[in-house]
């Protein structure tokens, strides 16, 4: 296993474009800390974002995992190109001739995906922990470590997304087309939602059905955190509205994404197995 990871590491780290993207991704993850510095001080209006409670434990776990998940697009490019480059350079052929089995090839890619997700999760955990310790109003250990399941969801969400990218890379063989396909798929899910909502089902059923589609399922894992924010809640209360959203992570959502991961990885393997190179 270590050998397979080392193989991927050599391939990625010696590629300047991948290296730059990976470094900028982790730099961006850290930059979430910069949000803390947002401060308006215009005459009577004093606004300091860090004071709005976004860095309070345990809310910070929800907020940071939701926001940083958007940066995954950077790594998506790295993953799509690490797969499709093997085709365009024909190095996949050479790898197999040199004695890597097709299974090992896919496993080495999947291990890289897991590593990326794991490192991102640990990174977000550390950055959030430090931000929280600095800005949070509550610092009791039991509160700090509540809601850590958001990190698990974050990990699954990234792994799912990257596995999808990997699969597209194998399927399409060209990085630009694979990324285009990814966007196309997002649009497709949107249109599909629109059609079934319009013609067939009510809002609730539509949501349930859409929850089975890969991108929507990944998005569902971590719901938007803004309406949970104290300030937003109090505004809503004043307006006489009650925002009763379900923020929590459901086990069936995790199962759906894990099923997609299995489908993508097994799908990549069977495509590779069937193809003549």
């Amino acid at each position, binding site marked *: 296993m270590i050998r397979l990871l080392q193989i991927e590491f050599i391939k990625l780290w010696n590629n300047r474009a991948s290296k730059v993207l990976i470094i900028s991704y982790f730099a961006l993850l850290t930059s979430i800390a910069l949000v803390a510095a947002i401060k308006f001080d215009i005459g009577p209006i004093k606004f300091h974002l860090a004071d709005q409670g976004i860095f309070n434990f345990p809310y910070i776990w929800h907020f940071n995992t939701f926001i940083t998940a958007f940066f995954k697009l950077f790594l998506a490019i790295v993953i799509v190109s690490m797969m499709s480059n093997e085709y365009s350079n024909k190095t996949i052929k050479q790898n197999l001739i040199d004695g890597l089995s097709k299974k090992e090839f896919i496993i080495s890619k999947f291990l890289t995906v897991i590593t990326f997700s794991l490192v991102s999760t640990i990174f977000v955990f550390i950055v959030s922990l430090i931000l929280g310790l600095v800005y949070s109003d509550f610092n009791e250990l039991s509160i700090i470590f509540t809601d850590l399941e958001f990190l698990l969801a974050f990990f699954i969400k990234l792994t799912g997304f990257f596995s999808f990218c990997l699969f597209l890379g194998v399927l399409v063989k060209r990085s630009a087309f694979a990324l285009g396909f990814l966007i196309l798929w997002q649009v497709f899910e949107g249109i599909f939602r629109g059609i079934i909502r319009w013609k067939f089902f009510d809002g609730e059923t539509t949501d349930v059905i859409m929850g089975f589609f890969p991108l929507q399922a990944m998005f569902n894992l971590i719901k938007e955190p803004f309406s949970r924010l104290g300030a937003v809640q109090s505004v809503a209360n004043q307006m006489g509205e009650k925002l009763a959203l379900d923020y929590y992570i459901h086990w069936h959502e995790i199962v759906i994404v894990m099923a997609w991961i299995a489908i993508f990885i097994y799908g990549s393997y069977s495509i590779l*197995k069937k193809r*003549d190179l």
Partner: protein
Amino acid sequence: MSTILTVNHLTKKFGHLTAVKDLSFTIEKGNVYGILGPNGSGKSTTLGIVLNVVNKTSGEFSWFGGDTSTHEALKKVGAIIERPNFYPYMTALQNLKLVCKIKDVSEDKIEEKLDLVGLLDRKNSKFRTFSLGMKQRLAIASALLNDPEILILDEPTNGLDPQGIHQIREIIKTIAAKGTTILLASHLLDEVEKVCSHVVILRKGEKLYSGRVDSLQASFGFFELKCDDLEKLTSYLSTNEHFGSIKQENGLVTAILTSELDAQSLNKLLFDKGIIVSHLVKRKESLEEQFLALTKNANA
């Protein structure tokens, strides 16, 4: 002598096209094999199948007696197929380190093999800056990293300039001299004739011949003769029991032998009959002539 590769009734179809048809042969340790055949005769497909990159339609093959899985066996094989494939953004050294990781061998042979192919001074240049000849030589170095039991080369001199071809041939000869088993696919006959002891000849995916190169050339050879009195010469030769057909072309008489006869005896025989030749050469058909005859026969 141990068997390295056994191929049994191997068939590969691409849709309607049958690229390899019921092919069987074995590769024994220590010999240098050539796979000969015109373009599109299924050479590369056959190699692709045994190297795990092309899926077979039916039949089977086994490496080293079939004790190990194909990908494990391939770690003991060095192979280059068609064009050299490496990561263009990595240097020669980095590429070879990667190959070492895949083959699960130590990295301390890298310098030695780069030296063998004459690329040691360019080890830190990126692969994309290499000329085709250098790329091909790097591919050979890479294939040798594990000191393979067998080296498989598919058209190793394709697209190279004369110097490049010469360099590659010298390298192949050096490797063959060390006793490494080599399987060389080529459509260049003189190439195969120069280095191979055994050949497998393919045409349209079918095996026409497999065996030793010298038993392919099993005929008794032929004489090329010139003299002033051609008529006397031809009429004498046609009565001689050693000769089969006799051809005359541009004043050169070609007489095919049907039994053993050396040049000295023929010369004496002719002199005794009062025929004085100005040109007398005994030759054997080249592999090229044999090959063309063989592929033509199969055509009919």
